[in-house]
């Protein structure tokens, strides 16, 4: 593998890791507050659809992004209503949201566009353009560093940079602000938060809303950045992979970055090397495509050390004596 190929694989790693990273951080906010969210998938999916649909209709990728975020936040509030206000089972609420999104997107897409449950391909202003960072062209002639900067760091869409900047931002919010302290506390010990005179319900709704916001960006990026339009089930399990990455990262922002890059790398490798020839035996493309999912299972099976989740995760808060 030469340097250029390596750069291409890494470049595609970055693009593929972005939606995972955003969804993973979304899950991080929710689960750190004690609300388990397996509905990341559904929220991304609905955001992907509405962002692509609105972008296709208006020609504005920004309006698309807004629509994606609004739809995902609304779905996350449904999850909040079920699991925070009505103290329902968070897993079941999450599963319901995934089914709802899977059905709703295709249904509305067929009704609006009549193209078999997809949106029209996005062109021009309906998609995110790539941003060329300053001096990318000038530096590209410099050996090693030049191509690295021009190809790997420069030349991504805005949402990729947003996704990566979310990592330090999340860390800062979580560990350096009052909101972060309370958020972490409510996921560990809601009764401590309650007796300290802070609203458990308010904090959890805030966390769930942030989760919706980030899922909205992730979904929008899928449909209007990574690809040019919405197709049925286009999230393809990314919400679940993001959850696995979250566990792998032990609910910590910087570790989440590492975990998502690892999954992104596997997806990139699977995309580039469809049939690997190992002297006689050809590894079929399906095996490569399955790699990220196999890793997900391995991680969820707990082969990567003990992950201690937020202590109050999954439990609705009921005041007790």
């Amino acid at each position, binding site marked *: 593998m030469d340097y250029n190929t390596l750069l291409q694989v890494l470049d595609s790693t970055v693009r593929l890791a972005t939606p995972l990273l955003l969804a993973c951080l979304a899950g991080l906010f929710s689960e750190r507050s004690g609300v388990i969210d397996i509905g990341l998938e559904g929220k991304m999916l609905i955001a992907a659809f509405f962002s692509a649909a609105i972008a296709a209709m208006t020609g504005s990728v920004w309006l698309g992004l807004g629509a994606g975020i609004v739809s995902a936040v609304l779905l996350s509030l449904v999850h909040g209503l079920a699991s925070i206000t009505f103290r329902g089972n968070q897993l079941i609420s999450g599963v319901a949201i995934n089914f709802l999104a899977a059905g709703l997107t295709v249904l509305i897409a067929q009704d609006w566009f009549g193209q078999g449950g997809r949106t029209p391909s996005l062109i021009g202003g309906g998609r995110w353009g790539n941003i060329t960072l300053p001096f990318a062209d000038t530096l590209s002639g410099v050996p090693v560093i030049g191509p690295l900067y021009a190809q790997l760091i420069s030349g991504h869409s805005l949402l990729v940079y947003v996704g990566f900047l979310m990592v330090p931002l999340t860390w800062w919010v979580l*560990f*350096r602000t009052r909101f972060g302290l309370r958020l972490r*506390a409510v996921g*560990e*010990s809601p009764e401590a938060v*309650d*007796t*300290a*005179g802070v609203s458990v319900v308010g904090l959890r709704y805030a966390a769930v809303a942030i989760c919706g916001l980030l899922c909205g960006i992730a979904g929008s990026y899928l449909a209007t950045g990574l690809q040019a339009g919405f197709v049925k089930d286009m999230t393809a399990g990314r919400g679940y992979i993001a959850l696995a990455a979250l566990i792998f990262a032990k609910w910590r922002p910087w570790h989440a970055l590492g975990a998502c890059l690892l999954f992104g790398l596997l997806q990139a490798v699977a995309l580039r090397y469809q049939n690997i020839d190992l002297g006689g035996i050809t590894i079929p493309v399906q095996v490569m495509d399955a790699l990220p999912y196999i890793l997900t299972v391995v991680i969820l099976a707990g082969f990567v050390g003990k992950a201690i989740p937020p202590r109050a995760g999954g439990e609705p808060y009921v005041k007790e004596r």
Partner: protein
Amino acid sequence: MTDTAPAIELKGISKSFGPVQANKDISIRVMPGTIHGIIGENGAGKSTLMSILYGFYSADAGEIWVKGEKTVIPDSQAAIRAGIGMVFQHFKLVQNFTVLENVILGAEDGGLLKPSLSKARGVLKQLAEEYELSVDPDTQVQHLSVGHQQRVEILKALYRQADILILDEPTGVLTPAEADHLFRILDNLRAEGKTIILITHKLREIMEITDTVSVMRRGEMTATVKTAETSPEELAELMVGRKVLLRVDKAPAKPKEALLEIENLRHLDGQGVEKLRNISLEVRAGEIVGLAGVAGNGQSELLNVLGGYADATGTVRVNGREIPLSGRGCDGMARRAAGIGHVPEDRQREGLIMPYSAWENTVFGYHHGPETGSGLLMDNAAIRKEAAAKMERFDVRPPDPSLAAKNFSGGNQQKIVLAREIERNPDVLLIGQPTRGVDIGAIEFIHEQIVRLRDMGKAILLVSVELDEIFALSDRIAVMFDGRIMGVRDAGETDQRELGLLMAGITEDPGGDAYEAVDAAMDQKDHREAARHG
């Protein structure tokens, strides 16, 4: 007296949960700068009353006056604003936060943490000096001893400028030395003019530290008296409505051959930490051996190993026969067959299946025996009948075998477990926390049953966090510390001070102020724990 407004005045507070009236028309005046005790049996409504005061519940009727002003307390925030701080029985701390983070939670200044943290650091230092409340501000709470965690709770309240402090059963989890330290802290707080409400069911504490005491019984305030003008006997009578024996009446033990022999027992927990270090102990027929110690020093593990719920190495003989300590034949059923009865420490999680009815609960663990039926089927009618008879004999109230276990009070749940384990006539009985959360009337009964079993020639191993209970029941007392048995003493030849030192791991009496030494030892244990957890 008339010109000082009471720090807290409750007027006609009532509160019901469904058909149960937890508080009936309660009025009380707590004067500033005093320690006011509230004493009563479990379920008398003490905690409910305090929860109303702290804004957890709203009262159905009645008024709350704080410092002479009528105050409405709809939530904890309002209570905090009114200057009320609460130290709950079960601490409300975030385990993986540092002491500092726990203290500022909910009382931060501004959106960023840094200024709040450095301010709190200064305040804590000052409070530590003022009230003997020193805790390392940067240790995670989960690595602190229970006594220190409680200090963090007090610090939280003081940091919020509380001048009225409510403590709910504060000494239940403390060693005598820690409790003594707590009382010194409370003394200092009172000297500074703070008002303290102490909720407890321990008469000794009330007599030792309070100025005034109010007695609650079945949701009603039955009396408020000056502590100096009352006696433990009078208070006990006010609590239960009749005279009670505070001492267990028992003849001297007549121990015979050893029924339970433990030699070189070792046990590692799931993390590979050695929880039992070379334990050797014997319990003879006709004696009660009490295991004293601060919770978490290996007593629970020892009961689990003997009960067959944890693996260990070493030798254990019951009635002269060795029993397997791991692998096949090491489970609860085999232990029961070998003659070991077990009343687990946590009756709600290990002793009973709470949603199941009482009659079902009276056969669990023995449901394979011949008396429950033959073949695959169980003879439910016979079990019910037997259960009803057992409940009668053990004075379980209400004596209704079809009622679910969770609907009985703590004391009656414990009687169901005791009935099940004692009536099978075991040679050895393991009893963990026989009267935790049990009211005085039932405590008397349970203690009588344990002594009766001893006099029948059984060997009894008793674990309790209540040192008074250990003293009252045991013929010999073994003290555990950090997985070891620090010493075994005859109950008649030792005292609280000696046991307190042993419980802190000190075998030589240092003389002078023993409590200082105990505190130092507990601090060392904290540091060891912290180091172990990295």
